[in-house]
């Protein structure tokens, strides 16, 4: 095997040398022509240097296969290639027809899109790479292997050759320069080939990886589908063909297996992705709303969906870890007092009115805190229900907090750098103001109107920079509006306080004496306030005349304040009630204990035994305390339900009935109802979002006292989704001033986070300070609710953990820990400030670089004729030592500039002169600037600028060649 290969190699080498000699001759003939063409090309093309070269290379490659068919040995040369000789010859012989072909194609394409030129160049480069790989692949298939040494020898020979020739050339430097560039650009492939024998597999692997990468990134290319399809197929074929060929012997099978598994994995991932998107509920519904109302209304529904997901998880926790164990393993209904309806309530316990108030059977059901038993472990699994109850109650907060913060962080990451506000106001208005999702003519008309208004407004702003009197009036109006809104808030706060006080008075009376209204006064007033105040605020906000997006935020903030005030007033009232209940409970507890002691004493004295059975009382007849936790839970549930009723009724009456009336009475009415006073309702984004947020806050607060609340909320959200989607599509009209949602999503999240925190406070407060009821709930019999945890640590965990816990809760440890955290926060804060500073600096630097670039360009513009002449006069521009990576300053750009300058506006030209002065101070050497833009926008400005360079250059080139 080895021997044969060696023989073959020698043969090849012999051939090769012969061939080379022939070529030398051939080359001499060609040289003059070639030099000419190369030189011209350098002039014409230099600005797009490496790309152009890549293209040339690709042509060269294309020419190769045919030649190979003729002479086998030629291949070797091509492979190490990158020598002028084969390149030039190749281009001359074969590439010409193709070239013109390509040019044609290019021209036709460039008519359509000049802008995509850069990317096409890239494409060309990639194509060439691909072809070279293909070539190599074929060779490999042929089974020929060239040892590294010999290759190197050949290589060196060639290089020497090339240099010699280069010396002779008139444009020697230029060629070398180009070679340099080429070397660097193609060094990767060359090195691959040099290490073929040793690193063949590695190289092939690399190629395969490259192909895979190409496949993965193909969708990011703005090409035509056909083209991408072809590329994809080629790449896939290549990968298929050579993936199997990799690896030897044992490794081979393993490799094949690995490859197969990756393929399967990719397929699975894709399927899973598809499955995931298919699983997102209501996608179509939301899209439909989005297309009718723009993205702002849709953002509400997306938020609603997100909330639904969150609640589903919370429900999973609550149901799986608390409710289900109690139902399955706990004692059944009626077995103990806390699970039984008391005797005096039993006759009415099944009445609808009672159930509707969550009394009767509802009160003594799984829905509420009081139902749960305080047995330490239940069932076969020894499930510790009380512990689980506490942990789930706290865990719900933990999980929500985590999710909200994570979502917020992700949103703000997506936000990018935020950009300098106001730098591109006009351009943004121009380029990004159309919402492509709008698919409804009516909305589109509104959008046209709003865009026009915003254009006009900004023009007016720009023109006169606002009038002074205007601004005073506006300020006055804004202050006035704020004062009015504050009054509203104060009034509503007082109203709630008043009502709550009254309800406490009512609570002391007998419930039979009270009317329905008096019993539900608090809920009623709160719902009414929630209903009336937001529109009132909106009306007042008209005075302020903010941009709708800003107005929305103000509106949200105000309604938030209102709701918050209401909620906290409600909470304080509730706390008063709880303390009252606690007192009455204490007396009942004492009485019960006293009675029990009495009973025990009597029993023991009567029967003279210490073995006392518990008193035989029907669980329904046992005297029991008020169980304040259940009371609180009921309050919350009632609040949620009444809130739900009000919301749904508002939609039904305020939107649906209104729409029906407007629609059908319009034919027989004295004025135009649709355009005039009532018209159709708009979808109230801010109100709905806040409703949702506060609803969630109440869920968080109430979930601890009423585990069923989460389930109820899941149902509610589900209903809301369908109901509101229907309502919005059926009876609302798009906003008069359609505006985009932008990032208010994070604003909603911020509100949610605040509400979460605020609802965390009372719950944690009650858990930590208030004593649980003595005869209901999972914590009955404990001093404090968290004693369950202590108990578990002491009794069920090994003692050292208890010790650790004791140490950890020692103030001596907690204080340093807190101190450490504070220090950490301080440190992180300082670091972030440092980063901010660095960011600002970078931004400023970029700005400066941009300005400088601008100046330089202008400089060129104004003096380009002179510069051009100068360039032409200079004997040899190539004397300037070229940087290895960068191209020489392209004269081409200057020409192009010259062509453009007539187009320049007079104003810009004037500026240009000014700037030029600056530059002449800053950069005395006008040749200095490189036309490449610095940094991220690299490459593009030169290529994608004008219509002239592309076709013009192409034509020039082909002309010369002919």
């Amino acid at each position, binding site marked *: 095997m080895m021997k044969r290969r060696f023989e073959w190699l020698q043969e090849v080498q012999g051939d090769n040398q012969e061939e080379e000699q022939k070529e030398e001759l051939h080359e001499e003939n060609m040289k003059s022509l070639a030099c000419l063409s190369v030189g011209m090309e350098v002039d014409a093309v230099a600005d797009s240097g490496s790309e152009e070269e890549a293209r040339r290379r690709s042509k060269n490659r294309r020419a190769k296969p045919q030649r190979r068919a003729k002479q086998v040995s030629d291949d070797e040369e091509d492979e190490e290639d990158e020598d002028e000789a084969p390149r030039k010859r190749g281009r001359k012989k074969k590439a010409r027809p193709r070239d013109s072909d390509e040019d044609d194609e290019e021209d036709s394409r460039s008519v359509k899109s000049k802008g995509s030129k850069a990317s096409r160049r890239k494409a060309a480069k990639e194509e060439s790479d691909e072809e070279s790989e293909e070539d190599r692949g074929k060779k490999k298939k042929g089974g020929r292997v060239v040892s590294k040494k010999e290759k190197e020898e050949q290589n060196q020979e060639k290089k020497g050759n090339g240099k010699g020739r280069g010396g002779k050339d008139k444009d020697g430097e230029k060629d070398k320069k180009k070679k340099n560039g080429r070397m660097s650009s193609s060094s990767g492939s060359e090195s691959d080939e040099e290490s073929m024998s040793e690193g063949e597999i590695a190289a092939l692997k690399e190629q395969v990886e490259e192909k895979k990468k190409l496949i993965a990134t*193909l969708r990011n290319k703005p090409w035509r*589908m056909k083209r991408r399809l072809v590329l994809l197929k080629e790449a896939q074929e290549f990968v298929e063909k050579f993936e199997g060929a990799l690896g030897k012997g044992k490794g081979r099978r393993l490799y094949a297996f690995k490859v197969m598994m990756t393929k399967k994995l990719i397929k699975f991932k894709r399927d899973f992705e598809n499955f995931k998107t298919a699983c997102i509920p209501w996608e179509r519904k939301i899209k439909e709303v989005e297309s009718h109302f723009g993205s702002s209304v849709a953002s509400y529904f997306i938020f609603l969906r997100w909330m639904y997901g969150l609640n589903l998880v919370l429900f999973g926790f609550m149901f799986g870890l608390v409710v289900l164990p109690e139902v399955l393993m706990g004692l059944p209904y009626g077995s103990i007092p806390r699970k039984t309806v008391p005797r005096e309530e039993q006759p009415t316990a099944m009445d609808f009115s009672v159930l509707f108030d969550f009394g009767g059977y509802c009160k003594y059901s799984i829905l509420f805190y009081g139902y749960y038993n305080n047995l330490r472990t239940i069932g076969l699994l020894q499930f510790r229900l009380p512990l689980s109850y506490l942990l789930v109650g706290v865990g719900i907060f933990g999980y929500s907090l985590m999710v909200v913060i994570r979502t917020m962080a992700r949103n703000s990451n997506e936000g*990018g750098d935020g950009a300098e506000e106001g730098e591109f106001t006009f*351009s943004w208005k121009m380029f990004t103001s159309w919402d492509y*999702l709008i698919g409804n003519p009516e*909305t589109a008309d509104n959008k046209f109107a709003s865009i*026009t208004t915003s254009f006009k407004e900004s023009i007016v702003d720009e023109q006169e920079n606002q009038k002074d009197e205007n601004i005073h009036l506006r300020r006055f109006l804004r202050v006035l509006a704020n004062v009015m809104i504050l009054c509203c808030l104060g009034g509503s706060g007082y109203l709630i306080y008043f009502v709550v006080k009254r309800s406490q008075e009512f609570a002391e009376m007998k419930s039979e004496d009270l009317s329905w209204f008096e019993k539900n006064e608090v809920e009623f007033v709160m719902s009414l306030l929630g209903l009336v105040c937001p529109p009132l605020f909106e009306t007042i906000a008209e005075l302020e005349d903010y941009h709708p997006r800003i107005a929305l935020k103000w509106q949200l903030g105000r309604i938030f304040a209102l709701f918050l005030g209401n909620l906290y007033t409600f909470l304080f009232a509730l706390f008063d009630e709880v303390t009252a209940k606690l007192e009455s409970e204490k007396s009942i507890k004492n009485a019960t204990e006293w009675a029990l002691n009495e009973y025990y004493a009597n029993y023991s004295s009567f029967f003279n035994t210490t073995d006392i059975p518990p008193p035989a009382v029907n669980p329904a007849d046992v005297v029991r305390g008020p169980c304040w936790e259940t009371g609180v839970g009921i309050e919350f549930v009632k609040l949620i339900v009444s809130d739900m009723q009000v919301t749904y009724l508002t939609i039904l009456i305020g939107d649906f009935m209104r729409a029906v009336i407007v629609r059908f009475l319009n034919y027989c009415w004295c004025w135009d109802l649709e355009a005039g006073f009532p018209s159709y309702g708009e979808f109230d984004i801010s109100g709905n979002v806040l409703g949702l947020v506060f609803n969630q806050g109440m869920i968080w607060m109430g979930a601890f006292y009423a585990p069923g609340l989460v389930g109820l909320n899941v149902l509610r959200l589900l209903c809301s989704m369908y109901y509101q989607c229907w309502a919005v599509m059926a009876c609302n009209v798009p906003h008069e001033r359609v505006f985009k949602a932008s990032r208010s999503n994070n604003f909603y999240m911020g509100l949610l986070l605040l509400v979460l925190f605020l609802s965390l406070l009372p719950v944690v407060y009650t858990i930590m300070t208030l004593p649980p009821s003595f005869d209901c709930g999972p914590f009955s019999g404990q001093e404090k609710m968290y004693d369950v945890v202590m108990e578990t640590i002491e009794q069920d965990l090994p003692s050292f953990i208890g010790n650790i816990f004791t140490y950890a809760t020692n103030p001596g440890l907690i204080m340093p820990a807190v101190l450490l955290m504070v220090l950490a926060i301080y440190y992180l804060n300082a670091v972030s400030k440092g980063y901010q500073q660095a960011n600002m600096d970078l931004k400023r630097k970029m700005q400066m670089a941009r300005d400088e670039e601008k100046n330089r360009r202008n400089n060129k513009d104004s003096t380009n004729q002179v510069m051009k002449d100068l360039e032409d006069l200079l004997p040899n521009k190539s004397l300037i030592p070229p940087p290895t990576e960068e191209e020489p300053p392209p004269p081409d750009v200057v020409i192009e500039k010259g062509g453009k300058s007539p187009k320049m506006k007079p104003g810009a030209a004037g500026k240009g002169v000014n700037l030029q002065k600056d530059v002449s101070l800053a950069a005395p050497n006008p040749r200095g600037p490189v036309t490449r833009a610095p940094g991220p*926008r690299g490459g593009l400005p030169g290529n994608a600028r*004008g219509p002239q360079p592309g076709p013009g250059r192409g034509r020039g080139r082909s002309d010369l060649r002919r």
Partner: protein
Amino acid sequence: MGTTASQLGKDLLSEYQELTFLTKQEILLAHKRFTELLTKDEKDLPNTRIPMERILTLPELKSNPFRKRICHVFSTSEQKDGSLTFEDFLDLLSAFSDSATLEIKSHYAFRIFDFDDDGTLDCGDLEKLVNCLTGETDDTRLTPEEMRQLISNILEESDIDKDGTVNLSEFQHVISRSPDFVSSFKIVL
């Protein structure tokens, strides 16, 4: 659904998934919508082009002021009549899809705004763009004076190299900082 899947072919479907930002369901839906636009006898032919007029009857494009430009940009037709094949249609949906990158989106946005297809946004393009954005009716149109002011403002902001036009890189530079371009440059079937 099953029939459309079989029509499209499994390999092709997976290739389309590879090449676009669309999921399988979206491609199938697109195919369904596309075949709905075909007439009876066109259905049998492979690679039929749908003329622009019929594409524009799609509700998603109907009220878009750039609808004709969109068709022209994505069309591969030789006659430049804006007719689309299914692949062109997929290209369109992919560029406008949720998960397309900013780069792709801005690239196509640039080509849509480049009304005369010369690779830069010059004053004429910008004027046409403004007219598109302000609608067809006369009362929403800007006066020539306002138009001139607006265009000069825009060039002031985004024409970095001061050549009187906005080129692709300048355009992308501006767009990439916009807070809501990606979220609004979307068309969903």
